[in-house]
């Protein structure tokens, strides 16, 4: 029990405690350690932390952009765990799950990853099985059939959801249906997959593929050696296969779709093309995006959720693509307030184009972004994730430090100029899916 001393000054709760402005912090990105394995695959890792856990992610240039038939890349990625020459799918899963480990795979547009999360002490018993699936997967016909059947079923459920349909459609408008970022798979596409498609893709992009490895955690002393022994003789080369991007945005700017006549909400997507991280406007746009719709205190949230109550959440993002990006505003709103929501979005764009942000709000956004980044640099997993993003985008930590500088120094005038350049309604696609 603690008692208050009788001569303590009265507490004035209207006065906030003095803060240190996060905008003045000096943030540093912890460097990685690097080793090139004997097959040429680079290994980037951060050895740190308190918990004895490890993450190893193998990033292959095996994404959707390399397939000649829809769904091939993601099917191959998924079925890596579904049988090798010597192990059935069950045996592979039993092996990882017995050690409390997770082996996940994911397929994106340019890259496909195989990711291991495990207690560090189990790396030596788990990595050899990863090598096995990367060299001896056989993609049994039966496993492919089950995958196809269950994927088709999952797709039929997803197509009932207005947000799922809106997300696919907006990418088609932005990039065109032939672009890796805009292409979608249908049930017919899934049905048409053959074992040969998957085997050929595996041969070209995994067996004879190229790969970068990212790892983090409280790693064993001989970590580099362990990786070399397990993965150093994978038959990999260093070239990234070329990709062709056929960007063909839709000519139809506005769309209203009824996916479910009895829907009580509409999924709204308002989006425009935007350059990738290499463009000088990208970093300032990250700040503008935060202000506009990138956090709970954003212009969009403050108006459309906290003032009007039209939605549970509204956000804007700069899409996380490598080749080119898009600025996307996204929300689910009551059907009777969808049009009003869209009008408010454009109103907020107008305010940003025409009015300078005041000093206090600008400082708030800067402090918030710096504080968030500080928290996001905490621990080896966060650090390696940031490095992975930089490296896959062909960048280094200069991008990080320039980003920090941008947050610290961007002016109200610069934000207004950027808004005038990009936040123009006529440049946006507008879609509502009910």
């Amino acid at each position, binding site marked *: 029990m603690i008692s208050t001393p009788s001569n303590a000054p009265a507490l004035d709760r*209207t006065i906030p405690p003095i803060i240190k402005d996060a905008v003045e912090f000096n943030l540093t990105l912890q460097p990685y350690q690097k080793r090139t394995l004997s097959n040429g695959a680079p290994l980037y890792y951060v050895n740190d932390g308190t918990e004895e*856990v490890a993450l190893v992610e193998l990033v292959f240039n095996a994404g959707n952009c390399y397939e000649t038939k829809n769904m091939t890349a993601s099917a191959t990625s998924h079925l890596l765990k579904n049988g090798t020459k010597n192990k059935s799918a069950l045996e592979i899963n039993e092996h990882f*799950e017995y050690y409390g480990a997770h082996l996940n795979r994911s397929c994106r547009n340019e890259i496909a990853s195989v990711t291991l999360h495990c207690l560090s002490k189990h790396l030596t018993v788990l990595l050899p099985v990863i090598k096995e699936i990367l060299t001896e997967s056989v993609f049994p016909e039966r496993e492919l059939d089950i995958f196809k059947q269950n994927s088709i079923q999952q797709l039929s459920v997803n197509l009932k959801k207005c947000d799922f349909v809106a997300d696919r459609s907006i990418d088609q408008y932005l990039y065109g249906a032939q672009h890796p970022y805009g292409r979608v798979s249908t049930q017919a596409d899934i049905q048409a997959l053959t074992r040969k498609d998957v085997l050929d893709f595996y041969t070209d992009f995994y067996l004879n593929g190229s790969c970068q490895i990212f790892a983090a955690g409280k790693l064993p002393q001989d970590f580099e050696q362990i990786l070399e022994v397990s993965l150093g003789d994978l038959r990999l080369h260093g070239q990234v296969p070329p990709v062709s991007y056929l960007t063909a945005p839709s000519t139809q700017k506005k769309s209203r779709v009824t996916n479910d006549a009895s829907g009580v909400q509409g999924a709204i997507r308002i989006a425009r093309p935007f350059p990738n991280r290499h463009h000088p406007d990208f970093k300032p746009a990250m700040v503008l995006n935060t202000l506009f719709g990138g956090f709970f205190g954003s212009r969009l949230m403050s108006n459309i959720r906290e003032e009007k109550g039209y939605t549970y959440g509204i956000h804007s993002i700069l899409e996380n693509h490598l080749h080119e990006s898009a600025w996307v505003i996204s929300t689910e709103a009551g059907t009777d307030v969808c049009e009003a929501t869209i009008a408010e979005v454009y109103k907020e764009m107008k305010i940003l184009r025409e009015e300078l942000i005041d000093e206090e709000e600008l400082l708030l956004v800067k402090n918030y972004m710096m504080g968030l980044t500080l928290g996001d640099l905490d621990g080896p997993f966060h650090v390696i994730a940031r490095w992975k993003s930089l490296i896959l985008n062909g960048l280094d930590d200069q991008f990080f430090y320039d980003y920090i500088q941008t947050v610290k120094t961007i002016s109200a005038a610069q934000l207004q100029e950027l808004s005038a350049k990009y936040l123009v309604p006529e440049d946006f696609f507008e879609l509502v899916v009910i």
Partner: protein
Amino acid sequence: MVWLKFAAMIKFERFTLGNGLRVIVHVDKSTPMAVLDVIYDVGARDENPEQTGFAHLFEHLMFGGSVHIPSYDEPLQMAGGENNAYTTNDLTNYYLQLPAENIETAFWLESDRMLSLAFDENSLEVQRKVVVEEFKEHYINKPYGDVWHKLRTIAYKKHPYRWMTIGKELSHVENARLQDVKNFFFKHYTPVNAIVTVAGNVSVEEVRRLAQKWFGDLPPGQKYTRNLPKEPEQTAPAFLEVKAPVPLDALYKCWHMSSRLDRRYYIADLVTEILGGGASSRLYERLVKEQQLFSNIHCSHFGSADEGLLYISGRLVKGVKMADAEQAVSRELARIKTEPVGADELQKVKNKTESMMAFEDISLINRANSLATYELLGDAELMNQELQSYQSVTVEEVQKECAAIFVDSNCSTLHYLSNN
């Protein structure tokens, strides 16, 4: 194979202020951040059955300004912080993370809104609408979205777990009045019903000083004594059939299980992992892969403080008869009741638990949330004892627990059928 397990112990200190507020401090000098977590001993189970969804709606109102501070979020953002909150059937938890230098801002904000809210009519009006949109987004506008609304009402006859945290129905949320809000606040949101947990780059002395400074003069409030209607033992199976515009039939089955701190809880938790905890689990391997009766299948449980539900759920492959799906599930349950699980199979799920805890403990926010939740259950030290509880479970206990839970008279079933 059994290896020595020493889970990293989470160190903390604990003290109580004069007004009954419990405070926990977990020091971690390796991070630049600090987390402040405030957990209130109130959840959906504590609601009036005619005014459900209130605890959750109230959570929203906590951000509408407190008696001395018109905006909660802005000063926190200015201090480089972010926050979130969640409500369950059992509790309401608010947490924020910010640079450790600015920890006093957290104390200022949280103590003022524990003291009193601004109780703004306009804020109630807006948050009612926001919660209505949340209700629509998650439970009305999604295929199979209303499953748990329906399943809870047939599984529970008396206990407040019969309604969802979001509310039994939209009208309860729409009809909430400001006076009800005020009553709710003064009944539940008081120091004697709250626990403050501070974690990160702080010192115990600093936290003691700040806790006393900002929370010390709050009136204690009345201790809330929970006296909930007890759920009578279920004596016959319950059943409901629903037809809906969904593409595929789905099966949901649930059984009553133990409360959180009962030893049987740990056994039941491991049972759900054996049955449906991943691609090597029994239900997945047999029913999805071998027999191809389901396109997906899950087995889990509420994790609730009072006696919760253990459930199996899955979507049937198109064309499969519900009777065949039910029979296949019955066969698996009969097997686990009559044949002891393999030693390796049990070891596997214990290893998964250990690994999961290690990964969870990486996050400062998770550690703070866990300490707060365990303290609310009775003792924060439980956090460091849990793994041992799991590791001591035997093959015989698993079999006995399955025999006790998986009986028809303990079961509620929902057939969710496509009306296409």
